[in-house]
């Protein structure tokens, strides 16, 4: 008789639970760097608006000229509020690795925990843009058969950690098990 196989009832309380996940913070430089990028983006928008308003080559139409101070004011307000909100949200982002799955937590007003079982991973990509490369960071993208809408991505990982995570997933016995 097969003595290895057991099939005892398991109470829900004894299951591993996502409630006790211990999240690790992202790279220390990720949140400030993102803040800088976002602030720069709004600054560029404001400079662009000013350049169009005060360029010497053609006269700006009246319908655009009149609301200009409001437009600049709105951009300034958005440029302060949104990057601040994003910065605070970035500080709360974190990932948790268990033996069988990888989770990513994000969101300030709307908290979100995505869990990707390693068994269902199709392939892994480590992406590093020019800014991330300079800061020694990387984004780990994990693809499942759930489609591009549900790509699981952990941004702002220190390069070494990202590589280790990728290696962990690739060398996991279950990855690509069922295509």
């Amino acid at each position, binding site marked *: 008789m097969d003595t290895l196989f057991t099939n005892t009832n398991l109470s829900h309380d004894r299951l591993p*639970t996502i409630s006790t996940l211990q999240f690790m913070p992202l790279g220390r430089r990720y949140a400030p760097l993102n803040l800088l990028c976002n602030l720069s983006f709004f600054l560029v928008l404001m400079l662009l608006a000013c350049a169009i308003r005060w360029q010497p080559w053609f006269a700006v139409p009246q319908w655009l000229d009149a609301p200009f101070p409001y437009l600049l004011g709105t951009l300034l307000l958005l440029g302060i509020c949104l990057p601040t909100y994003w910065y605070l949200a970035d500080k709360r982002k974190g990932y948790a690795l268990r033996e069988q799955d990888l989770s990513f937590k994000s969101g300030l007003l*709307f*908290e*979100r925990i*995505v869990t990707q079982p390693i068994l269902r991973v199709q392939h892994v990509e480590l992406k590093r843009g020019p800014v991330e490369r300079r800061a020694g960071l990387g984004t780990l993208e994990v693809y499942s058969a*759930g*489609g591009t809408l*549900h790509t699981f991505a952990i941004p702002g990982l220190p390069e070494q950690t990202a590589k280790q995570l990728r290696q962990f997933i690739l060398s996991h016995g279950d990855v690509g098990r069922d295509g």
Partner: protein
Amino acid sequence: MDKDPADTPWILLASEPGKWQKLSPIAILYFAERLIRQLASQFIYLLPALLVGYAQIRDNPGLWLPVLSALLTLVGLFAWLSFHYYRYRLYKGHLQIRSGVLHKKHLDLPFERIQNIKLEQPLYYRYSRHVCMLLDSAGSHKQEARIYALAQDFAERLKREILRQGGTTEGQQADKEADPAVTEQEKLLISRSVPDLVVHGITSNRIWIFLGGLAPFFDNLFALADEQLSRLGLDLDGLLNPAGQAWWQFGLYVVSLVFILMALLTLLSIAGSLIAFYGYRLTRSDDRYIRRSGLLTRHEVSMKLSRLQVIVRKQDWLDRLIGRINLKFEQLNANIEHTGAVAVSGKLMVPSIDEVQCQALIDDIYPSNQMAQIRYQGISRRFILRNGLLALLPFAGLTGILLFKGESQAMAVCASAYLLTLALIWQRWRRWGWAVDEEFVYLRKGLLGVDYYCFPFPKVQQTKFRQSIWMKPARLCSVTLVLASGGQTIPFLPEIDGRRLIDISLYQLERLKASWM
């Protein structure tokens, strides 16, 4: 004895493996049809040119003949070239296709990557007994292949050969299928008669999609109808002028007109249903479900049971009234990963069946499911509050403007519209339900109609837990279980249940390591 035409390529394929094969010349028709379709879909870009040259066209009405002839000659030439440059072969467990006239393509598709094989038979292939074979892979849509014209029997054998050389399970399956005695055992699960398809045409909501598509042309259509009716002695403007007659008379005309229009569009919908599902047969051969249907082009879609991701039992309000159900079997999501024609048929639908037939089919696929009996848990009433408040925003803005302008009647209409929206939100909340058992997750949702979803735990690809700061004090959350056919979300369920649902889903698939396909 007559030589079976299907045997010729088969013998070639068997005796000279790896030798590049040509298509049957009838494929030229298929290439030409595809080209004409592509041209027609690009027609919209030609419209500005036609408008600019309208005066020229009007002055030279005879011009269309040489233009059309030139166009058809070009299409014919290109179709012939496409046929001429198309080669395929089976080589060391791979299907290889070389194609393209100007832009050369070489496709290499390993058999084990082939997910689905579909045989399609356009009307003009029916007399020469040819089919087009479409092969779908698990990779990107670039990995889809078509073999444009194969003799039907040969295609069946080739399909078996590919499946046999593919994975182990499929291989065993194909071995069984290769045995004619076993092939005979294909069991008919359900067929659809013409009256059933007429019912489906009436109940499916294609009318509104069609109306939406026609919206930009309403003005022209009304003008045309007006002109035609005037010729018949009916004065549409006069009939529809409320000042010229009693209100009941006017109302009657409007209602009759709407009914006539609806009847016409319903006829179109019935025609659509007949074209898509004529001769519908769903059969089962071991763990493979095969759907065959189509009036003009015969489609054959086969689905391995393990590839099925979710069963959807759909009932619109009209379906509910007459007790009909549309049952859908969803495989890999066609809309997200794949954009090709093959994957679009990833959904396998059984149109307009009754309760008993529906239950029999669901039980045939998942014998232990409890979709019909299980007790569904509702979601929190906060769903109504959240959506009610969100819907209030535009209504409040509009009411404010109307109040400012002193339009009390319009305000009353606005308030009624908001109340109606609230009633719909309440109805949507009432429909929401979810349940789990040892093996399956069940969802119920809908508005006027009701849809049931059922999928086994191992089909889950990813889980998402969501909680806003407004949900937190009420200890509520939303959970999304992502399947290969798309995400299934349960909103506003108790946090403890949401976490448990995720825990169970992860445990089931991580512990049991069951395959999802």
